[in-house]
């Protein structure tokens, strides 16, 4: 029988002398997520301020859609629109989990306790109390999504007339598909479409809402997956369009008439 006397640090208990006893790579997930987030933010910021290479023929980058061009606005038109998807994702229940863990370390991983008693206020005070406005961002993001579907359809038409199917159009449709799965699996929407009811069978309207809620629940179960797939698809769609604009890539027309 060996013995190991453990020292008590302030605020810690002799039964829990370290921030964790976990032996697995608990820091792996928050570190990976932080890296991906930072890369995406750098790329998106670069693209917004590049203010170029976002439209080629009928192909419009999702970062710049809907295209808002006004005389009084001298900066990148992307700024006028990107606050919507940015706000939607920042207040998203899944991304909140991800960045609270990765950036704020509240907590970095389960049963890993870096803080001790402190002034933590969660989502009750400024700025995090604004997370409660997530549903407003949902309404706006759903609106933007309509434009993205419209852009994908428009990309099937050649500016000079006639139609074409290109790999780039397929990419744009796939992006819309992922974004739709993400947007309509939203927790706030799950509440609004039916979750707020206590009784699903009480009347016909409740029954329809129950059906919608059931579908949204299915999407919602994989909300994290949709969140990541749509983040990558949006960045890759933009990158592809950028490369087409610069002439580095072609939309790869499969057939046209």
């Amino acid at each position, binding site marked *: 029988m060996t013995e190991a006397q453990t020292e008590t640090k302030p605020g810690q208990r002799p039964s829990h002398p370290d921030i964790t006893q976990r032996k697995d790579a608990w820091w792996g997930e928050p570190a990976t997520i932080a890296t991906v987030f930072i890369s995406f933010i750098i790329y998106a910021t670069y693209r917004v301020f590049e203010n170029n290479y976002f439209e080629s023929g009928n192909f419009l980058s999702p970062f710049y859609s809907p295209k808002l061009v006004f005389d009084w606005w001298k900066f990148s038109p992307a700024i006028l629109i990107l606050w919507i998807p940015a706000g939607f994702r920042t207040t998203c229940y899944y991304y909140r989990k991800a960045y609270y863990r990765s950036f704020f370390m509240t907590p970095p991983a*389960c049963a890993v306790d870096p803080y001790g008693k402190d002034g933590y206020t969660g989502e009750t005070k400024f700025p995090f109390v604004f997370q409660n406005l997530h549903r407003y961002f949902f309404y706006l993001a759903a609106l933007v999504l309509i434009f993205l579907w419209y852009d994908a359809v428009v990309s099937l038409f050649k500016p000079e007339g006639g139609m074409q199917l290109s790999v780039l159009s397929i990419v744009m449709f796939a992006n819309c598909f992922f974004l739709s799965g993400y947007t309509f699996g939203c927790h706030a929407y799950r509440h609004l479409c039916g979750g707020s*009811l206590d009784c699903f069978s009480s009347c016909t309207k409740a029954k329809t809402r129950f059906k919608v809620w059931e579908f949204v629940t299915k999407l919602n179960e994989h909300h994290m997956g949709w969140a990541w797939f749509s983040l990558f698809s949006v960045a890759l769609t933009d990158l592809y369009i950028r490369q087409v604009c610069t002439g580095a890539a072609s939309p790869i027309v499969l057939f046209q008439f």
Partner: protein
Amino acid sequence: MSEHKAKEATLKVYRGDGKEGKFETYKVPMEAGMVVLDAIHYIQANYAPELAVRWNCKAAKCGSCSAEVNGHPSLMCKTRMDHFEDGEEIVVQPIKTFPLIKDLVTDVSWNYRVNEKIKPFTPDESDTKEWVIYQEDIERVQEFRKCIECFLCQNVCHVLRDHEKKDGNEQFMGPRFLVRAAGLEMHPKDTADRLEYLKEEGHIGYCNITKCCTEVCPEEIHITDNAIIPLKERVVDEYYDPLGKMIKGIFGGGKKK
């Protein structure tokens, strides 16, 4: 009894109370199908009869044997020994969040005091007809009824565990009681309103939906997705969505209450 030559496991178990104590190392012969609780019982029977441990069913159904095994909050009777590497040192600690009485036994009575603050099931008194409740109306609530009150979620929740929001007007009710409140709020026959309690006293806003409660729940209740987030959205309905309230005021609708 297995036929093979018995392997040995090494357990490092916390011995002591909340003020002082140390980790003691014990060797335990492995048996087929053995769980951590069996190993603790072996230690009790062979080396340390005074080792304090709380258990009852050994079937993951009573919720008594909560502890932390290699830093993971878990039921000792559900944690299989063959899940560890050969020769791995297995650290067994009491749960951290509640006052330690002795060795692996904690005083979880704080939870019962929180529970008393939740308005109990309140059906409509005038509803004297026989109740007919459809499966789709009660399914959500049934998930929450699976809770065995092991308090592993309360233990792992960083708001209670790390930031120690347990007392006074900063008390966080914790995931287990958010589950209970959700089961009552979503019950089709319940008429009470608990939203003010949830926001002002239970401080649902302290939860930052980082999902550790969901990760540890042995009953696999989707605590965050199905209980906490829907309740947060109901709190938003009441306190943070002036537009939604106005629309409901004009067109009617909303909840039965």
